[in-house]
């Protein structure tokens, strides 16, 4: 589904990704965990094309998309729910979702929206309200729902649990897990390593712009290095 080879990226003269290799197979939930500043968000920004890659390659469903413009990658089925939600605050909840379906102009959009509302019923209640007035958790749900409206085959999720109350973290991650059964492949980036590894099939640990450990999710949870550094056990 998604194959990343020796991906490098820089902000000015400072290299943030020093050659990342990563593989996401169809139907998997893969997570990238790591501390703040490890380069996880930069990685996702490169995958979506909103941050240029300085070297390496990104192959998505057989196509090399390394130099493809961000909005075209969405059309290919690679969507992202970005860090900090980034919803359209001045537009209504419903308009946020309709813009998620910007590339689709067919009757299925209504059906997609019903499915999104089924995943997050609170959004149906608030559909006419301005998105900027939603609570943090609701905004997170909207960001995920909006990304789903693009009809992704692979969804990149950046820190969906950040800043949420524990009860909402569980709720959001439950939905993330349920997306797998809808046939969406997921790449989940999280600081909340334990929660992420719990729902993932495989995981990567990222440190200062490099992948340092990778393996099955259960292996990583059992790995003493991971336990000590990220799970606080």
């Amino acid at each position: 589904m998604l194959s990343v080879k020796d991906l490098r990226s820089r902000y000015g003269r400072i290299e943030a990704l020093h050659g990342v290799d990563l593989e996401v197979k169809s139907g998997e939930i893969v997570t990238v965990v790591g501390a703040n500043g490890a380069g996880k968000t930069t990685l996702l920004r490169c995958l979506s094309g909103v941050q240029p890659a300085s070297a390496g390659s990104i192959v998505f469903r057989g196509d090399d998309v390394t130099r493809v413009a961000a909005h075209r990658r969405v059309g290919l089925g690679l969507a992202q729910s970005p860090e900090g939600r980034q919803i359209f605050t001045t537009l209504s909840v419903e308009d946020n979702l309709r813009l998620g379906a910007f590339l689709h102009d067919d009757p299925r959009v209504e059906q997609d929206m019903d499915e999104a509302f089924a995943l997050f019923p609170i959004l149906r209640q608030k559909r006419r309200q301005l998105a900027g007035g939603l609570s943090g958790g609701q905004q997170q749900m909207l960001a995920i729902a909006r990304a789903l409206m693009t009809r992704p085959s692979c969804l990149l999720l950046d820190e969906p649990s950040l800043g949420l109350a524990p009860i909402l973290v569980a709720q959001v991650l439950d939905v993330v897990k349920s997306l797998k059964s809808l046939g969406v492949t997921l790449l989940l980036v999280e600081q909340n390593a334990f929660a992420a590894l719990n729902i993932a099939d495989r995981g990567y640990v990222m440190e200062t712009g490099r992948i340092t450990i990778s393996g099955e999710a259960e292996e990583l949870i059992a790995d003493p290095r991971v336990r000590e550094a990220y799970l606080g056990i």
Partner: protein
Amino acid sequence: MYEFLQFVSSGMTVGAVYALVALGFTLIYNASDVVNFAQGEFVMLGGMTTVFLYDAGTPLWLAAVLAVMITATVGVLLNKLAVEPARGASVVSLIIITIGASIFLRGVAQIVFDKQIHRFPAFTGEDPITVAGAAILPQSLWVLMGGAAIFGVLYLFFTRSVIGKAVLATANNRLAAKLVGINTTAMMTLSFGLSAAVGALAGVLATPITLTSYDVGGGLALKGFAAAMLGSMGVPAGALVGGLLLGLIEAMTAGYISSDYKDAAAFIVILTVLFVMPRGLFGRAVAERV
């Protein structure tokens, strides 16, 4: 009483033009955070191009349509050639680029057209209509109706069409817009084209009353900018109210005090409003929950 009506009608007419220029500012500012000081040049190009096409024998309506299309193309080129290559530059640099562009456009207009003052005939006759003692030019009604129509069409465009909402989305959060598949570069180009077309339309509607020449753009840009600031930069309703208010203040001052003071009075009111309400009349406190 008829005097007052007379001043209102002339104030509204001039105000409608200011409102359209302010709307042009707003369209580009929303899409790109750029304050485009070449906005007045679009009005000049709309008027001057119509004049010269009309003098060359083109029917007036066709000359007007062509003028709007040509000006919209100039707007797109301005974005492609001057603003887009400087993406990432500071807002001040971008403003200076647009000021440079406006001087350039004025220079080109001087060569392509000439340095004379021009007009073309009003759309539907020159004889004033008398309403309660006040003489109103038919072209004034064209300006007001045309202005209202432009605001109405753009309102529908931004609230009903997906492309319109995509422009608003780009303005609100460019990163998120890209991530839902919106070509944000194209949205910026569209905004420049739209803004130039609105400016050109203002020029076409107003020229029979206000006359035009290669150098009318600078003054219009300044008034339009002031109107946009008065109504809050980036708010279309603010552009409308700010423009009309500015026109009315000018007309009342000119009528009741002296036309020497009309610009001063307008700017004193603007300064006072901005002193009390720094965000302008329609400014909202920026409050976003995180």
